[in-house]
């Protein structure tokens, strides 16, 4: 029995250890009820953006947090996912499932190629190469006049059969379903021997080789999975925004994803989602708050946002999830117990 269990190998922590994640996910499921009664339909839109960015950040976290691969180019996969909608519609394909399919295949392939070339390097070189690939793709789409070039192209929301995305609630719950599925998938991936091996690679790559495993293969698979998740987020992003432009894959978005992850907590499942909530809520509310206190400075809300971020990084070890873990007395995963390295 023990041997069988070892072979299947769900070694990490289960649902119980990821309470924060599932609380957040179910919170998003209930949010439309709240916004209906509180008469705040605008906030449904904000919630969708949070879910989409959170989903992409969760994807990036698999390589950045768990695998220790600092990819500075994941916005490219969001962009590819989004352009899968735009380009498909350009050629008359309006089925949303097809868009998703194209996006998964294209991002998987792009992740495979970029990963194959970039994962041979590490440290600062890896950061630079992933950024370089993202910039190449960015300027590729800027130069493709047929698909709108710099100005981008407006798109219709994908047709998902009986799910009419022009009904805002259905769009909301399509995005929610994607978020829930990605969360579930990542929970299993992170608990599996594959996910634990990724974390082990972060700690000591040459040791993995001496254990008889190829670090490159594990990192490649992780990279492709994270690319596909970002692609799915991008595809839904395009349908939500009804507009695609190279801006969606601007390098600052890669940075935004990294900030969200670090803010929420590296190598935790709930971290990226929590980070996205706080990041986007601050982005929405700080200009308003600042506008009320000092109207002349409302546009410079980043003056407050920046120091806040630095405070969390400096004093909140493990980001927001680390703070929550310490307040509630639950134990985080071993990455946090191990402390900063």
């Amino acid at each position, binding site marked *: 029995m023990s041997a069988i269990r070892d072979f299947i190998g769900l070694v*990490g922590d289960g649902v119980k250890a990821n309470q924060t994640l599932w609380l957040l996910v179910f919170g998003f499921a209930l949010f439309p009820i709240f916004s209906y009664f509180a008469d705040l339909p605008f906030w449904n839109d904000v919630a969708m953006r949070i879910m989409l960015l959170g989903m992409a950040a969760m994807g990036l976290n698999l390589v950045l947090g768990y695998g220790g691969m600092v990819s500075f180019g994941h916005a490219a996969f969001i962009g590819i996912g989004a352009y899968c909608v735009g380009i498909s519609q350009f050629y008359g394909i309006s089925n949303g499932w097809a868009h998703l399919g194209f996006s998964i295949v294209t991002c998987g392939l792009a992740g495979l190629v970029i990963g194959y070339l970039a994962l041979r390097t590490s440290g600062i070189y890896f950061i630079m190469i992933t950024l370089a690939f993202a910039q190449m793709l960015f300027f590729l789409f800027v130069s493709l006049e047929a698909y709108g070039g710099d100005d981008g192209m407006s798109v219709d929301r994908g047709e998902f059969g009986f799910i009419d995305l022009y009904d805002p609630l259905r769009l909301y719950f399509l995005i929610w379903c994607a978020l829930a599925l990605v969360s579930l998938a990542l929970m299993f991936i992170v608990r599996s021997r594959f996910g634990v091996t990724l974390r082990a690679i972060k700690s000591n790559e040459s*040791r993995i080789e001496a254990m*008889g495993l190829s670090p490159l293969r594990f990192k490649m698979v992780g990279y492709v999975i994270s690319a596909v998740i970002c692609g799915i987020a991008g595809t839904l992003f395009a349908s939500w925004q009804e507009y695609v432009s190279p801006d969606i894959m601007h390098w600052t978005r890669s940075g935004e994803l990294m900030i969200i992850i670090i803010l929420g907590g590296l190598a935790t499942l709930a971290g990226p989602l929590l980070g996205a909530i706080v990041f986007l809520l601050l982005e929405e509310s700080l200009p308003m708050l600042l506008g009320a206190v000092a109207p002349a400075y409302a546009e410079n809300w980043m003056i407050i946002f920046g120091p806040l971020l630095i405070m969390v990084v400096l004093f909140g070890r493990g980001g927001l999830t680390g703070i929550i873990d310490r307040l509630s007395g639950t134990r985080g995963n071993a990455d946090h117990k*191990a402390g900063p390295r």
Partner: protein
Amino acid sequence: MTMLDLHNIETGYGAGKVLFGVSLSVTAGACVSLMGRNGMGKTTTVRAIMGQLPLTSGRISRFGDDQDDRSSFEIARAGIGLVPEGRQIFSNLTVRENLQTFYRMPAGQTGAAWHLDRVLALFPRLSERLEHAGNHLSGGEQQMLAIGRALMTNPKLLILDEATQGLAPIIRQQIWDCLNQLKQDGQSILIIDKNVDAIAKLADHIYILDKGRVVWHGDSDALLATPDLKSRYLGV
């Protein structure tokens, strides 16, 4: 069957040659020891066996084949479990994760297969620490974990590099007892250590390295019966 056969291997780091024609072999079920002072090439020999250092001459045959073009992880995968010098457990993984993640099904060798429960039965200390992070363990517990992690891959050949170094005497004795147990189970072992008395009790055959050459080899009776060996090649 021969588990491991080194034939006149020479290797080194860059221009600095470390091994000058080392030959040794480990037969199935045997416990072979490699001894010598610091800097004589013991760990370099292990690195060559693991395929981490390219040979400049000679050849290594593992489990009866001698493909030289295999990468390091393929060599380990073929059935070598290494307990490295300095233990090198994964500090950000729990004890359970350190063990279970590297389980591999046994590839048709004799003896019972290793799995989590059996490793925990061998090292009961670890079962009390299952959910602790790797770097929250004492040195002795880390050493047990490193051995357990290697056993979880069900290796045909277990290599231990300085497995008792820097441990309290009582822990050291536990490790020796456990290695004796493994030997009785028929596990093939290559062990590097400086403790002559313990090695003499455990090992079937001993090789002594000095400045990159095998200067003496024989069984444990011969080791104990040759009085000047210890002072010439092993003493500090």
